[in-house]
């Protein structure tokens, strides 16, 4: 359903005065172990301060159960606006409904729910697709559409499944001649490294490693280097998603780490503060779309910009 | 009901290469007490464990009350009417006395444990075995002797037709042993078949109708008791036709001889251990002086405070006052390592909890505190360790003398030798040796050998030995001098020609007056 519905629901159930002033926004981002988390909290807190709003955070430690517990606590405590990135969208529907029923503002982050005031959208599928397409294009140009690719995937959470699907579908569609030699679960550099090493032992001539996260892909990047691949090898392509600092640096240095599907943390932080404020102010279309872009070797300025946000 | 009796035929059991039982026959008719004797490691406990279902025998049959079994599970054994007191206590520390007595055979009402009924019954049983603990005490907090009595009460609680007791008196003093003997005689008249394992020949003489001696897993001797002398039994146990070892009191003459030799030794020498005004929770003040090379016994009833005195001297418990000197040096032992640093060592009474490392090898068990002193530049001296172990195992007659066998696989008496060996080996010097029930469960032959080792430690190295014992025979055989302990105080002293079994027994009797000896426990 359209986000507008959510807003009207919220207002119908909420206080009578139409222009609410928000003093508190709760940001519930579950993946506290990711580097993005710290950056996001920092930038959002700063953005919220500018608008005289204080920002609350949860500590979900990547546990869907803890997330549900913490969200329930917030709803019970009537935190006036909640921005939540549900680890499991289906599991959050009931809580979001309760929040709306209690007259709170509910902003879904990274997708949309049936019950919500607004959402902050970015397509994980699109991030994967961007990477897959870029890699396929490179394979067609540099390898003549032949070669071997390994995917570092994630099938445990929704975000991961979407990114994985976008990446693999786009790549295999645009570069059908490249052999897919492995699809291995890996989201952190350690696992990325050891899985890539195993794949390389069997396929020393592996050309591409595409990761569902930059962290995993970085592990693959190191595995290739450790099997003797020169950091600037022309027949090798590593790409990931997130826009994590080590990967951005590797791209900037012109290595065979060639691409990352990156989100700008500042854009997200702004949306985290502005979307609930827009809902509170009764704006017509409060939802926001955060762009995902692919950064590659040429994009030095963009990389510097992204790195500057990671402080 | 069938005629309750026990018939074992051709029982065999091996552990790895060791034949613990090798075709043993044993028949116990109803209304008879059958003593089962044998050296440490002869296979007595193994036979009993086969009977109790602890493990299956390799061959042979066990016939109880007319039904024959080739193997029994513990439940089948209980159902067949066998009640057993195992050598290593099988009580559960964190449960109460009553719960332990009825473990596995709970009295229930509406499918729940009928606590009150159990406690009332338990109180009766405890009274019958002259135990001073309450049915609601936690077993883990009781001293060894009381735990042994709980175990006996547990066996008595079952309406059994066969009762087996594996060294039931090893941790008991005279009074409790007497109470137990009366119980056993009662049960015999009630028609139970009773198997009684012991190393104390006096008990055999008092209780047994027949006797079987095992040696290395085979029946070495079988007879009715009447008409046999101690000498013949000892010969059968030790397996050598040798004269009764001196100091084994077969009668007054031997006792006098020991006493005489002790007093001959008693040339006044420098005091090695001096304890003055020593107090602690539940005992004291006590004054003890042990000279260089002197062996002093502490004799008293169960719960009289001997263990507490020894443990406090060793720093295992906190003293509340008094001074302790080793030679000229004043010692304040806040923990055992302090005491050891001052040259005081203790062989504790509770072998299983305080002494043994069941998973470790025999050599590690015997040499644990010796490894560091033997080591050179921080590296273990493996050859020296082996040499010390070999000497020790010869001196105490360890069986089997296998250094790498884990301690859990040794028989009870041999485990005791390992624990003792920790402080009486040649490589570990101590100035003051405290022994608490040093030879519990050790067979007659080895007991003599241990007395000799301890005596030579005293005479050759000048070690001062202070030991607690519940066995008057042992006190007479080992001690130069004996202190009578009663309710935490020293109430008398016997030495020289006065030191006889009879004197000891009457001394404790006087000290207590009547038989009430319940002392409020962990005060």
């Amino acid at each position, binding site marked *: 359903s359209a986000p507008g519905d959510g807003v009207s629901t919220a207002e119908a159930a909420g206080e009578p005065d139409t222009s609410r002033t928000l003093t508190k926004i709760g940001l519930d981002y579950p993946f506290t172990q990711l580097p993005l988390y710290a950056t996001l909290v920092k930038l959002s807190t700063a953005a919220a301060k500018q608008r005289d709003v204080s920002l609350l955070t949860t*500590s979900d430690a990547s*546990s869907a159960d803890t997330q549900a517990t913490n969200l329930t606590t917030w709803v*019970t*405590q009537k935190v006036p606006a909640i921005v939540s990135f549900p680890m499991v969208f289906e*599991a959050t529907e009931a809580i979001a409904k309760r929040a709306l029923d209690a007259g709170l503002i509910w902003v879904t982050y990274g997708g949309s729910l049936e019950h919500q005031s607004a959402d902050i959208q970015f397509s994980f599928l699109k991030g994967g697709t961007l990477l897959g397409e870029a890699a396929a294009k490179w394979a067609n140009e540099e390898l003549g559409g032949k070669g071997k690719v390994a995917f570092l995937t994630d099938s*445990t959470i929704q975000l991961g499944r979407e990114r994985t699907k976008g990446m693999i579908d786009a790549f295999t569609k645009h570069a059908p001649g490249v052999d897919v030699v492995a699809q291995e679960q890996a989201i952190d550099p350690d696992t990325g490294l050891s899985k890539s090493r195993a794949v390389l032992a069997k396929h020393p001539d592996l050309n591409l490693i595409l990761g569902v996260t930059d962290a995993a892909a970085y592990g693959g990047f190191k595995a290739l280097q450790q099997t003797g691949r020169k950091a600037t090898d022309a027949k090798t392509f590593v790409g990931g998603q997130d826009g994590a600092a080590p990967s951005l640096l590797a791209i900037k240095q012109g290595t065979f780490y060639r691409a990352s599907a990156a989100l700008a943390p500042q854009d997200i932080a702004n949306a985290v503060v502005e979307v609930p404020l827009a809902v509170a102010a009764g704006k017509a279309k409060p939802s926001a779309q955060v762009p995902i872009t692919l950064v590659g070797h040429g994009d030095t300025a963009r990389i510097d910009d992204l790195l500057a946000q990671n402080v | 009901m069938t005629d309750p009796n026990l018939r074992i035929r051709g029982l065999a059991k091996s552990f790895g290469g060791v034949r613990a039982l090798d075709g043993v026959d044993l028949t116990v008719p109803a209304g008879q007490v059958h003593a089962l004797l044998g050296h440490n490691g002869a296979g007595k406990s193994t036979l009993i464990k086969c009977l109790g279902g602890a493990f299956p025998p390799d061959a042979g049959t066990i016939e109880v009350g007319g039904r024959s079994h080739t193997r029994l599970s513990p439940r089948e054994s*209980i159902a067949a009417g066998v009640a057993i007191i195992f050598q290593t*206590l099988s009580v559960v520390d*964190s449960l109460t006395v009553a719960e332990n007595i009825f473990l596995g055979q709970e009295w229930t009402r509406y499918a729940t444990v009928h606590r009150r009924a159990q406690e009332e019954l338990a109180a009766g049983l405890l009274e019958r075995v002259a135990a001073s603990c309450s049915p609601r005490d936690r077993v883990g907090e009781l001293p060894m002797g009381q735990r042994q009595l709980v175990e006996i009460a547990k066996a008595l609680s079952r309406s059994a037709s066969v009762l087996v007791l594996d060294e039931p008196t090893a941790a008991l003093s005279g009074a409790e042993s007497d109470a137990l003997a009366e119980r056993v005689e009662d049960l015999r008249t009630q028609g139970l078949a009773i198997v009684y394992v012991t190393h104390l020949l006096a008990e055999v003489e008092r209780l047994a109708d027949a006797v079987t001696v095992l040696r290395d897993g085979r029946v070495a001797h079988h007879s009715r008791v009447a008409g046999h002398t101690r000498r013949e039994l000892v010969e059968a146990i030790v397996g050598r036709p040798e004269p009764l070892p001196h100091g084994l009191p077969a009668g007054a003459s031997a006792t006098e001889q020991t006493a005489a030799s002790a007093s001959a030794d008693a040339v006044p020498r420098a005091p090695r251990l001096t304890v003055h005004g020593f107090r602690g929770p539940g005992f004291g003040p006590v004054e003890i002086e042990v000279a260089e090379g002197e062996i002093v016994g502490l004799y008293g009833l169960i719960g009289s405070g001997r263990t507490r005195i020894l443990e406090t001297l060793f720093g295992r418990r906190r003293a509340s006052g008094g001074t302790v000197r080793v030679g000229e040096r004043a010692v304040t032992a806040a923990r055992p390592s302090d005491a050891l640093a001052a040259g005081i060592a203790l062989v504790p009474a509770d072998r299983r909890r305080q002494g043994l490392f069941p998973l470790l090898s025999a050599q590690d068990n015997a040499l644990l505190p010796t490894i560091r002193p033997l080591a050179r530049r921080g590296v273990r001296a493996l050859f020296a360790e082996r040499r010390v172990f070999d000497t020790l195992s010869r001196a105490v007659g360890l069986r089997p003398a296998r250094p790498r066998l884990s301690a859990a696989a040794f028989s009870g008496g041999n485990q005791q030798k390992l624990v003792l060996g920790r402080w009486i080996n040649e490589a570990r010097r101590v100035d003051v040796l405290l022994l608490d029930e040093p030879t519990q469960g050790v067979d007659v032959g080895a007991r003599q050998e241990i007395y000799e080792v301890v005596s030579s430690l005293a005479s050759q190295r000048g070690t001062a030995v202070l030991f607690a014992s519940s066995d008057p025979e042992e006190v007479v055989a080992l001690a130069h001098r004996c202190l009578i302990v009663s309710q935490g105080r020293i109430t008398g002293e016997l030495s020289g020609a006065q030191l006889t079994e009879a004197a000891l027994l009457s001394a404790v009797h006087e000290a207590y007056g009547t038989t009430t000896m319940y002392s409020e426990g962990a005060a």
Partner: protein
Amino acid sequence: MTTATTAPARRPTPSPRALARGGLSTLRRHPLFVVLALMVLVFQLATGSFLDPGNLRGIATDAATLAIVAVPLALLVISGYLDLSVGSTLALGGLVAGWLAGQQHQSPAVAVLGALAVGATVGAVNGILCCYLGLSAFIVTLGMLTAVRGVAQQLFPLPLSSFGSGFAWLGGSRIAGIDAPVVIAALVLVAGALFLALTPSGRHVFAIGVNREAAYLSGIHIRRTPFALFVVTGVAAALAGAIKASVLDSVVAGTSGAGFELTVLTAVLLGGVALTGGSGSILGVLLGVLFLGCLQNGLTLLSVPTFWQQMAQGTALVAGAALAYFGPRLTR
């Protein structure tokens, strides 16, 4: 109940005075009481809303699933075993219940029974491997944790949701004003306490944990009893999964109950159950569960920043252990 739940406690003549003394000694045996009370006080003073009925209800509902699994797990630990597979069993139970209710349109009762059957199966496998074959419970149940999660994800690769209003009853209805999960948890706690205190098998659980050999020689079923506890633990985990599925109206194979095994085990151990077996009480387990529930809730209420929250959580665990262990300890 207080005294009755504790291992070697019993009450022969419950006079008012004895009861008061019992209460005091219970306090001394469970210093976590004090820690918990202090924590509640601090949270209430700092937030002003910790003790609001709504908040307490939230804590209780969360603690409920924890308690349901913690009770049988505590029994298992007392008897000297361990089950690390409960997190995955919880997920599988929730998935099966949800699948039956949502996709197969079965009645809620059938859905729950289906989940319980699956839980019992996992528990039975654990039990056979650990009790009858004598394998290390740690490794076996850790293996099962991985394997069952794999099975769950293989069978249900996509999230399940919308189980219908009938199934929602399990997690959402109120019985005498109290949420159904809390009522179930209370029943489980009482059942566990009564079992330990009053039945012969309850005594046997302790005996097996303290001295397996002695228990065996006393004719106790040293395999069957822990086996049954494994099965019950599996059933409880599956029940908790079904409840969670009902509350959230959805289940995801990959994340449901992830890490739950450690949380439950922590609650059990905080509650004074020894990992080496042989001691523990249901009252302690309840305290451990409440401690974790209140801590999580209070820190969120205070909106402590994440990393500080992690530090606080770690420190609170240590402090909880410290106070819980200092009380009844002997000097050495």
